[in-house]
């Protein structure tokens, strides 16, 4: 088996795993509890999904100009992704939404208070 075939296989496998990660991230966005938890689902899409798909494309890229562009896309994604996530998280916190566990604790405390 020649090296180029091996590289192609690595690329295809990481494309496949990256796509799976994106699907799992979307699933997490749908299944998890409150806003804060759902953000962790998108975290997978941002890192594992985008990262592995970009890595796969790097392995399959035909010439160096494409490689340079892919690396740049990865760098920009890594810089902007967390910033956007943090902006959402902060907006949610500033607007007064509390995480689920804090809410349930408060409800329990209120119930205890009534007794």
């Amino acid at each position, binding site marked *: 088996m020649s090296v180029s075939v091996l590289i192609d296989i690595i690329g295809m496998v990481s494309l496949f795993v990256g796509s799976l990660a994106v699907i799992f991230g979307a699933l997490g966005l749908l299944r998890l509890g409150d806003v804060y938890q759902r953000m962790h689902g998108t975290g997978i899409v941002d890192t594992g999904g985008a990262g592995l798909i970009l890595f796969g494309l790097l392995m399959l890229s035909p010439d160096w100009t494409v490689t340079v562009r892919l690396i740049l896309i990865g760098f920009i994604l890594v810089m902007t*992704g967390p910033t956007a996530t943090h902006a959402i998280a902060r907006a949610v916190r500033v607007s007064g939404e509390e995480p689920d566990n804090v809410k349930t604790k408060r409800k329990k405390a209120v119930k205890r208070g009534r007794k």
Partner: protein
Amino acid sequence: MRQIAISTTLLYALWLLLSGHYTGLLLTLGFISALGCSLIAARMGVLDEEGLPMAILMRLPKVTLWLIWEILKSNWGVVKVILNPQSAKPQMVSVKASQKTVAGLVTHANFITLTPGTVSVDVDEEKNVILVHGLTDDFAQGCLEPDMDQKVSGLEGK
């Protein structure tokens, strides 16, 4: 002056990589536009240690591999939680940061957000504390360990 030189070099290198045109006239024009952008940025006052943190950018490749490994590990952890949403025990923790520059603090907060399972919700510049939302106990406690904090402080080199 030094910042303008660095910024011009970076922008020109980017232009060279992306343009694909290598004739005399275009090379000159490309350099002029890179220099012009840097001068405008300097005039705007954004070309300082915060806008162009070279110390951190230069040392970034050293921690990249470690960060990728951490991200892959916690990706797997979050996938497990997604498959079984009842196992999520979300909680907020305050992480003490030892970074001395604002750029370092932002890098630390970004690293925390970049790792799935933990999101930095609020950053307190004065007290150097990052409020982190963790998906489970493990993720939240993992954030409290000084591992990442030390790695990012190492990036600052101060």
